[in-house]
């Protein structure tokens, strides 16, 4: 009874605090405020609104938040960008890690993570949904890639803490793995001749890998020449011939073509029965994308630039795609990726989460993938031959992170996200500033979509 009275008192105090200012003559000022005043909570709680949960939450509290920029040597990670890692510390010694890497905007993502500090320090990390709402709705500007990535990094770290505290891997908290052996994955690849494609096929099979992803051979304008269209189709036909029927392959159009050009290519590559065609045109205009894909039965995938479940709702509801590819480092972490997966499942859409960041995001994705009946395949920016980057990731993570075994990424066996980042290793790859996303141009000097 006392507890209820106390909670009531807190609510009343909040209401009093919210009252608009009163002049000396007892009248409220007219025409001198925007009207928000009666609704604004003037609570001095840190984080805002937290006091009311003190009797229903845990005793765990976030005591510190750090953000790490991690820059790899350009020679070993050409297309990679500085990784942005987030570390949360608690009053009980449990720490959580997440990833907020944002291509070409590392400094902005790092600053945005720290902008959210007042929402996070002092909070109960077990309240993952509430804290997600606090960061998303409480930021007023809902979404966008910078905020989405910052929320993603923090949310992953919160789930890592949750799992560690509950002594369970995150995928167990999400409903258990469909297949404990792991989740199917694919690597990136390129081959520019039939001989190369055949050699790639042999190495792929030898590594036990079942799927690869390629890109189109050219940049594409909004209307294209017959020569370039033919080269695009011939390239994909060559890949199918070289890889044979047993290696699945996808093609990332990388939003280069217009819907007009995409429709022509999609029409002609249907007989190749590809795993999927990705980002077949730019993502901003879904009606335009719908126009492009209606001529093809090749599975269409998109979603890496979509933020929050809200950002994915329209593409699901319009029935444009067969496969959704939100990125756990942008969409809003475990919380948002799970929600998108739930909505996709109800519409018969499979999930193939994008992951072109560092190893934490990839591993966090595996947890959501494992518990999703509609999961198809997980991306990572890696190759059949792991090379120097795989060595760096092993240095950071202490194990060969995101390397497939028998065509699957093995599920982490540890609790939480199942990772333990070496801060000593992080120091070997110090942040060297934002690396802009590479730009490219057509031969007439106009900007091309890469």
């Amino acid at each position, binding site marked *: 009874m006392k*507890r*209820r009275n106390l*909670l*009531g008192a807190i609510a009343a105090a909040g209401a009093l605090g919210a009252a608009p200012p009163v002049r000396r003559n007892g009248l409220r000022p007219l025409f001198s405020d925007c009207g928000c005043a009666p609704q604004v909570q003037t609570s001095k709680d840190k984080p805002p609104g937290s006091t*009311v*949960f003190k*009797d*229903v*939450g*845990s005793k765990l509290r976030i005591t510190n938040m750090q953000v790490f920029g991690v820059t790899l040597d350009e020679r070993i990670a050409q297309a990679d960008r500085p990784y942005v890692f987030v570390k949360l510390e608690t009053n009980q010694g449990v720490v959580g890690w997440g990833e907020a890497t944002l291509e070409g905007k590392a400094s902005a993502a790092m600053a945005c993570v720290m902008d959210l500090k007042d929402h996070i320090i002092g909070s*109960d990390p*077990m*309240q*993952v*949904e*509430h*804290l*997600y*709402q606090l960061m998303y709705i409480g930021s007023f500007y809902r979404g966008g890639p910078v905020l989405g990535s910052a929320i993603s990094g923090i949310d992953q770290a919160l789930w890592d803490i949750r799992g560690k505290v*509950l*002594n*369970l891997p995150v995928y*167990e*908290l*999400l*409903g*258990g*793995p*469909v*297949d*404990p*052996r792991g989740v199917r994955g694919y690597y990136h690849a390129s081959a520019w001749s039939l001989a190369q494609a055949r050699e790639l096929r042999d190495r792929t099979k030898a590594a036990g890998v079942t799927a690869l992803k390629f890109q189109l051979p050219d940049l594409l304008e909004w209307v294209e020449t017959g020569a370039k269209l033919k080269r695009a189709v011939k390239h994909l036909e060559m890949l199918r011939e070289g890889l044979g029927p047993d290696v699945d392959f996808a093609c990332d159009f990388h939003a280069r073509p217009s819907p007009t050009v995409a429709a022509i290519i999609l029409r002609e590559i249907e007989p190749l029965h590809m795993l999927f065609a990705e980002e077949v045109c730019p993502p901003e205009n879904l009606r335009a994308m719908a126009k492009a894909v209606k001529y093809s039965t090749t599975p269409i995938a998109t979603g890496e630039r979509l933020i929050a*479940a*809200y950002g*994915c*709702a329209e593409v699901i*509801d319009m029935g444009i795609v067969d496969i959704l590819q939100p990125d756990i480092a942008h969409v809003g972490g475990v*919380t948002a990726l*799970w*929600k998108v997966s*739930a*909505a996709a*499942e*109800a*519409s*018969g859409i*499979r999930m193939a989460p994008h992951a072109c960041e560092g190893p934490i995001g990839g591993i966090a994705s595996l947890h959501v993938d494992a*518990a*999703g*009946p*509609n999961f198809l395949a997980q991306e990572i920016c890696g190759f059949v031959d792991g090379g120097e980057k795989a060595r760096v990731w092993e240095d950071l993570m202490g194990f060969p992170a995101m390397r497939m075994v028998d065509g699957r990424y093995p599920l982490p066996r540890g609790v939480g996200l199942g990772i333990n980042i070496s801060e000593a290793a992080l120091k070997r790859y110090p942040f060297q500033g934002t690396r802009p996303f590479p730009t490219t141009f057509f031969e007439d000097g106009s900007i091309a979509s890469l």
Partner: protein
Amino acid sequence: MRRPLPDFGVSFAPPQSAAHPLAITSFRAWRIKEPVSGRRYTVVKLQSQSGNSGYGEGGPASGLEIAEARGAVTGRRATESEFVRSRFAKVPALEAAVSNAMLDLVSRSREIPVYQYFGGPTRFKARLLAHLEGADENAITPSLERAKRHGMLAFTMPALSRDSMVPLRAYVDSMRKRVAAIHAKGGPDAEWVLDASSGMTPGDAATVATALEKNHLMWFDEPTGVLTADALAKITSESVMPIGLGRTVTDISFFQGLLRDGTINVLRPSLGLNSLVKIKRMAAIAETHYVAVSPYHDGGPIGTLAGVHLNAALPNSFAQQVPVPANDRDAAMRADITSGNKEVAEKGYAALFNRPGWGFDVNERALDAHSEERI
């Protein structure tokens, strides 16, 4: 409405190590019937290798279905709610009971409340909606008085059914009078939901919804049993009265379709037919349409209190429905099952139990005493 999920060709791996602490080793069930209302529900108890146990409630299920469920989940880990959602897609009452029992078990094994396991509290108290027994303003009185004594401030009121001989205008006037009379009974602090229990044609429902707009009811519940897009659009395109429905729906995709069409304002999945895990998925979809979830419940007290945990953990929940018995014998039985009446509120809100699992002790002797069958 009992369509399975979209088929992704998924086959779940067989049970892992039977020695795992969370591996389910024991499964019991009770088929419960309340003595006066005749309300039926199923309670499942699971026990794991570690000795932890958990209880879950679902709608009525047959003995055969329960026996099959026992075989399917024994040896599975109590975290495998996705397996249960898939395996029991065509037996929704047991999907709810088994999955919820697993949530209770795992939460108890971690010594945290279910709402904490389920994503943590998004609110520190949960609004209750009292579902009153009785078909008219007089018949609801005992139930209403009980609900008010138990601190509830939001109630359902029964809509009038329309005899075909009654002119539409007279019917609407009668409905207005009923709403006014029931409003007066509830007092100034009461909030109301008009419950048509699927009893109207879409056309009549549209007329009633429009006529009652200025009464500011919270929503118009289950106005029609005709759940086609066109029928529901007839109601929602003519009125701004919020429409709540879905008490018979077990298909997440069906709700998604209503949300796309804009023909639903409050999702009302039944706790007897959908697990908390499944309703969380429905809620995630509803969230992107700015639609609230307020689970329907016409089962027992374990179900009600599970709904309170769900309400606490979802960002877009609004209220948890509580069946409030008119008869003392039913009320006593419900209190007996939960070792004392827990279906109570203070100023309209239920407090959250910050104790492991559901946060109360299930009285197995009461389950034994009130069951039609123990399995």
